[in-house]
């Protein structure tokens, strides 16, 4: 499972960021979203985890693992909040927030894709 993007369709409406933070943190706050939309030159950059798994290797407590459906997940119990994974993510798609003990990332739940008005994000199995 992986969240794919078509930046050329994105209108930067911000709906995906709101949905993501609402689903996972019960508030609408783009800083607590695991998907981020930014301008890049004339276009748009949608920053979201591609499930490459580089973070699995750099986690000192083996808190990050690949689940059966292929999604990379974080076991909060094991995590010591060192944020090595944030600094070592090749696409800068591991996020952190001062209110939250552990880093967070896209787990391909697909809620944002469902609410995206233009089809710029979609789930692929």
């Amino acid at each position: 499972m992986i969240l794919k993007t078509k930046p050329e369709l994105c209108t930067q409406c911000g709906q995906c960021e709101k949905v993501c933070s609402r689903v996972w943190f019960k508030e609408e706050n783009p800083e607590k979203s695991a998907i981020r939309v930014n301008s890049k030159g004339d276009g748009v950059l949608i920053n979201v985890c591609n499930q490459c798994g580089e973070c699995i290797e750099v986690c000192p407590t083996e808190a990050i693992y690949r689940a059966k459906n292929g999604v990379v997940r974080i076991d909060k119990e094991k995590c010591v909040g060192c944020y090595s994974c944030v600094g070592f993510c090749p696409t800068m798609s591991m996020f952190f927030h001062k209110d939250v003990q552990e880093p967070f990332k896209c787990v391909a739940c697909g809620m944002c894709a469902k609410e995206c008005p233009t089809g710029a994000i979609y789930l692929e199995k």
Partner: protein
Amino acid sequence: MKESIEKLKKAHKLLKTFEYELKEVNRGYTDRTLYINLSDNTIKSKPVTQEMKDKFIGGRGFGLWYLWNAVTGNTKWNNPENEIIISTGPIGGTTQYPGAGKSLVVSLSPTTGTVVDSNVGGYFGPLLKFAGWDAIEIQGKAEKDVIVFIDGNNGKVTIEEAPEEAVDTHILIEQLTEMYADSEEDKRNISVVSSGRAAEHTLIGMLNFSFYDPRRKFVRIKQAGRGGIGTVFRDKKIKALVVKYAGVKGDTNKPADKDTINKLGIKMHKEIHDLDDMQNSMRKTGTSYLVKIMNDYDLLPTHNFKFGSHPEAEKISSAEWKKWFTVTKTDGCWYGCTLACAKTVDVYELKTGPYKGQKVCVDGPEYETIAGVGSNCGIFDPEYILECNFYCDTYGIDTISFGTLTAFVMECYENGIINKEITGGLELNFGNKEAAMELLHQMGRGEGFGLIAGQGVRRMKKIFAEEYGADPDFLQDIGMEAKGMEYSEYLPKESLAQQGGYGLTNKGPQHDEAWLIFMDMVNNQLPTFEDKAEALHYFPMFRTWFGLNGLCKLPWNDIVPEDNARTDEPAKVPEHVQNYVDLFSAVTGKKITKEELILQSERVYNFQRVFNLKMGFGTREHDRIPYRSAGPVTVEEYESRADRYDKQLKELVGFDPEGKSTEEKVKVLRKYREEQYQKLCDAVYKRRGWNENGIPTLETLKRLGIDYPDVVEVVKKHL
């Protein structure tokens, strides 16, 4: 395994239980320390005062303060009053910033006779703090071997007689981790401090600090190597200290400003991610990258510091170690250390000694070990280095002291000062790895020439002169020790500032105070005595600060920001200095500046200098260095670098070397270099606020706020 562990545990005899209230950390401190006396099994809690935090910060500062109050000027290392104090520091235990899990160990040293401090990785210091204690202070001596166990989740400290566990570290740490962990998952919550059998027979014993590696599924170790604290540990009949704390999270250190710490840590992780491969490749080869650089710049100690390079050095460079290391991407010795220099050789089959034939893990080797037991002894065999590294670790022996003293023994052997009769058959020529290995095993068994060598270079010089009629002046010239501590592994001959970096240290010649070779010799950034003195003020103070806070030095300048070379003072790594200022402020809530950072260190550093005075050391004569560290002692050495030295005689000394004998040139160069060193001492003392005998003045003590009556009393005797 389970059954045998049960058996070991059953043999324990509980001597004392102490229950305490669990307490959260507050802004990097728990505000109390754990005192244990093994003579009468006292265990008590001591409050940490605001004064202690303001003046001594933590870590090495706390250790020095407690030891100062525990001993008199007459206390010897093996008196019961001597203590071993272990403390991390306010920043210690931070999981976000690389290199923030260090423990600092302080004690009276068997080899130097004065106070020594050692900085070590592993999980003990942070877990001790999270268990509720800013420091552990151990005094007294047990009758029989004991283990001290601190249960940080149930608030309990026990002293247990432990007769059946191994003494050698590689077995003991596995036994105790298995014994005290509830499950495989729980193993990472255990850290063990231990030594080994050779610490009982020598004065150069060290301490191993453990941590569990979940990927490799075995217990790893880092070493508090310098100064013989392992020998003190075994003299107190401590088999191990064990701490257990489950529940480490990103905010267990309860910093005042977590957000800033997150950002600083992530910035460093990213910097390491982006730049380490292009800079020192610490993540792939650890500190072994230094071998080639040192060899290229003629700084790699070879044949007891006679030379700085060797044609065979390539055989022990990082290119070779790459083949041996089992690299993972998480080789840090505390959580969040992405510099990850703690390399291992996961499977190595031992060829000698009591564990011959067994497959073991070797933690290392690090640069100092490679240069010390390898090139400095003329041995360029990676397998010997691994074997020696392993046995030094499990026997509880400092690889640096072992390397430097073996090199000294080899030069004495080659000069006929000692012979086969004296060594009991060991042919200790440079390069003889079998003999060197056997010397180490003799230290382990407590027999033969190993017992003499294990006393260290300073005592060997005395024995060789008094009993074997050696020339004491020659031994003084080639015996690479100062203040009773063996030199660490950089050739300082061609850098006056580095001669000071070794000679003007508090504890003895250890590079962790000032490493100025490149600034001085390669980049020529310190042309005048004043420049050198400024560097020998700033850098020792700056580096002292790591030890007050539970930090590692490596993430300061073994990785640097991309634009560092374009800053005003690249050698200081200004951006990283600012990181540390911000980190301290964010943890403690006490805003400091980079100037205050130096002041914090200066206080502790001067206190330690006065501590040396209290113990009968610490004056100008004790800052004296062997001539081998300042220039060529022998004709052979001079002639190996004749062009360089001839040029210096002509250009710096105003002496025409043309047609002169090498003996005469050695003499003239020596006179010049020895004068230079004395001039350097003058300049450094002045810069540090000391008088011409190297004593901190009363004004200096007052300015630093350490003019306590008993401190002033010690100093006054010398003014």
